[in-house]
């Protein structure tokens, strides 16, 4: 859901555009299927984090009308909070990794002395 919010921060999108952008943003490692996408959209709509915009044609695809979604103020706030949480988590991991890093190996010299 966070991915969807991030995409919608960039502006209104329809379902397939969201799927493509999520895939591009994650370097192709995350494929959002239609079921997962619209199940997430249902939850985001229910939480008031996104809202349905209008139906219009996407000239880059075809002449079919598509339903667009936009992020709400509450959704922006939720995305901001989630980003903060993830940033804190990354900082914590970096600190722990530095603490746990092994010290350099002592240099061995001939004769058994270091």
């Amino acid at each position, binding site marked *: 859901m966070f991915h969807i919010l991030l995409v919608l921060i960039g502006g209104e999108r*329809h*379902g*397939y555009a969201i*799927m493509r952008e999520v895939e591009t943003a994650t370097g192709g490692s995350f*494929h959002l*299927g*239609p*079921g*997962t*996408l*619209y*199940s997430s*959209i*249902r939850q985001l709509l229910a939480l008031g984090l996104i809202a349905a915009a209008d139906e219009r044609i996407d000239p880059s*695809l075809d002449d*079919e009308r*598509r*339903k667009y979604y936009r992020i709400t103020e509450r959704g922006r706030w939720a995305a901001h909070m989630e980003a903060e949480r993830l940033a804190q988590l990354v900082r914590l991991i970096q600190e722990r990794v530095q603490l746990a890093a092994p010290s350099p190996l002592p240099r061995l010299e001939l004769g058994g002395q270091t």
Partner: protein
Amino acid sequence: MVRASTAIYRWLLVLYPRTFRRVFADDMAHAFRDLARDAHQRAGAMGVLVVWGRALADLVLTVLGERSAQMTSRTWQQLGGLCLMIGSGVAGVTFIIHRLVGFGVFLGVLGEVWLAVAAALFLPGIIALHLRLAGRGGWWRWLGTVLAVVGVLALALGQWVFALHLGGALTSCGYHCISIEYPAGSLLDERFSALAQVYGTWLAVVGLGVLSVIALLSSPLSGRTALPGALVVGYTAFMSLPANAPALFPAVELLLIWVGAAFLLGRELWREAAPEIGAALPLTEVG
């Protein structure tokens, strides 16, 4: 290929709950078509196959998620009750086969099969009831749980007939969850004498007390359908047979209740689905 795939995918969307489908099915079909079309342009038929593989996994997971998200406590009750009933029905069939074959390797094999099937079907039902049977009285579901545990123990100890009697009560519990129309008491009124013949008076009193409680719980809403009446007639007719099979009658009772309950459940499901089926039929103007 893209068009056919989209048509099949759109057809599969019927697996989602109706409320979800009504809002999102068209958009999902469009999204799938766009995915399949792009994949076909990039990699041909193999690309479409890859899209299908991902879409099917996505479909299964999200159908389960959406279904469970939209399940009401009533649906959970139905699911739990259905598990209990099927468990009891399977146990009844197995018991009859056991009585017919009755010895040798079949005894051991069928015993194991029965135990496994009953446990596999009872336990989810009990869990579902515990999770979702809110507002129906906590002690009532504990009663079903105790019956189930004792029934499984009786099965494990080889007390087949005792287990079947408990299975009968458990079926009543299960069906009670499925349809509140079920007048349990009317089906169980002559159970006392049968229980007394097999186990003695004191156990029969306890059994009757338990069954009376179940009957009391279901009685205020009884009499709404003719089917329980038909079941009572069938049950009474069976009880009028010579007392040659005090062990066999609960098995037949289980099956009788199970068939009746399956009919009622089917009727409820048909009623629920009928408007949708009716809407799908082509309408023709008369005159």
